[in-house]
């Protein structure tokens, strides 16, 4: 786990005021950070010459249903240079359901954030094109939220006009 130590060391030196919550399960490094700092941390780990996390594999969210901070936005970032994957997490509350977009850092984040917005209703600030990914624009709900029923809501998708 040499790379993990390097990543942690670098981040702690660069962002002294931020309290990272580090966890490690099955040899996967996970960092939890405040959502206000997501863009600066992402651009730091991408541009730092020793880290170079240039490949944004996946962005998604988790709905914890009854927790205070209801959602967690999850980023999986990979570094070709170190052959290492990192998982970043940021909590988002339902009452303030937005987080800054990382599209400016990785272009691939565009659709991944759109999908997360579609499925969970989390708004990504400064996103260039925040439309729904899969569901129709008229659809009012966010299907992957835990309070959306598995069978769907009858009548929520209008039939095509004749």
């Amino acid at each position, binding site marked *: 786990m040499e790379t993990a130590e390097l990543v942690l060391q670098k981040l702690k030196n660069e962002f002294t005021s931020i309290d990272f919550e580090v966890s490690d399960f099955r040899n*996967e490094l996970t960092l939890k950070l405040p959502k206000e700092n997501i863009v600066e941390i992402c651009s730091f780990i991408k541009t730092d010459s020793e880290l170079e996390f240039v490949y944004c594999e996946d962005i998604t969210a*988790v709905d914890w249903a009854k927790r205070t901070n209801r959602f967690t936005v999850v980023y999986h970032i990979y570094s070709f240079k170190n052959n290492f*994957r990192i998982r970043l997490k940021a909590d988002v509350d339902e009452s303030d359901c937005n987080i800054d977009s990382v599209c400016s850092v*990785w272009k691939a984040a565009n*659709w991944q954030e759109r*999908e997360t917005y579609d499925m969970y209703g989390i708004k990504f600030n400064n996103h260039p094109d925040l439309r729904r990914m899969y*569901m129709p624009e008229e659809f009012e709900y966010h*299907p992957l939220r835990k309070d959306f029923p598995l069978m769907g809501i009858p009548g929520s998708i209008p039939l095509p006009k004749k």
Partner: protein
Amino acid sequence: MDKDLKDVHPKIIQALLDTETDITVEDALENEMVLNMGPQHPATHGVLRLVLRLDGETIVACVPDLGYLHRGYEKLAENMSYYEFIPHTDRLDYISPMANNVAWVLAVEKLAGLEVPERAQYIRMMVAELARITSHLVAIGSFAMDVGAMTVFLWTLREREKVMDIWDMLCGARFTNSYTRIGGVANDAPPEALSRIKWFIEQFEENLVECEKLINTNRIFVDRVDGIGVISKEDAISLGFSGPNLRASGVEYDIRRAQPYLQYDQIDFNVPTLTEGDCLARYFLRVEEMKESTKIVKQVLQKMPEGETILNKPKKVLPHKTEIYTKMEELIHDFMIVNFGINPPVGEIYHAIEGSKGELGFYIVSKGEGHPWKCKIRSPSFNNIQSLPTLVKGQMVSDVVAIIGSIDPIMGEADK
């Protein structure tokens, strides 16, 4: 608004008009128009829909519209046990269901901390590589057909049909296999299936060369795809390309090599890489990958040890059906696993394999229950389609078909 565009949502039109573009056409005819392509179009490989902004025949901007095959598999996964989701993975990338089965069970095993018997690992490797061969055969065949070379499609599908027969012998299904189980595979590979695979690999190399000759000497094909849809190394990484498409742009990244899973570290194979990054390079790369896959299958057949094909861990692994009917213990375990699930520890994992189309990953969050709390499918096709607007910008309308064929998207996987 134009009457013909009444079916296109105004927001899509707005996104199309807002797209920043640097394409300028000399001697512009000043007839900018919006063209809707798909979702029912023979060359979009399923229900992909593109809305194109054209100047004459040149594409100025493009907005893909997904979701026509959205079945909500991530929602379904949260409401069923880990076992029950295996058949659903067949329907993700329906051209290579075996690879999806392998990816899902590997992710669950990582979460539950299970170590699979060696023979089962070799069988999984074998089916994953055969799935890659079938997938690339369809990709090449339909790509060639899209740009007008019909015969190749018939030849490659003939080869794929042979693999389908092998699937039939292995697991009793030709298309939706569901062959893997958590802790191993459904049943041991019968000797006749193994000898059939051996025969297939031997004759396949020759037949692949025949198919290659048919395409490589076809001047229409080569002229239509050479230098079309070029994407640079930096853009390919930034846009989240993976698999053959990424390697065709000069990034030597293969998960089988970078983070070996199963027994790939025991196998000798190359990672073919090209630097051109155009449609022709993506085609050549798939052919090279098929050759590497045949090499891997050959070695797997040689190295495959004898032994168990399913883990002996009754609390986590389903017993064989015949034992359930005759033994009390097995009946109890089957009842518990089917009704309450395998209850992996609390935690979250992300496990990716080198699927046929690229990096196929599953992110699973477990709360210690029988079903996942959250399951995210990182599908390669979704991220590959994302680069379409970049690839088609500045090309002709007829090139769109070639570009879609060359990145080989499968909508079952992109729409989930």
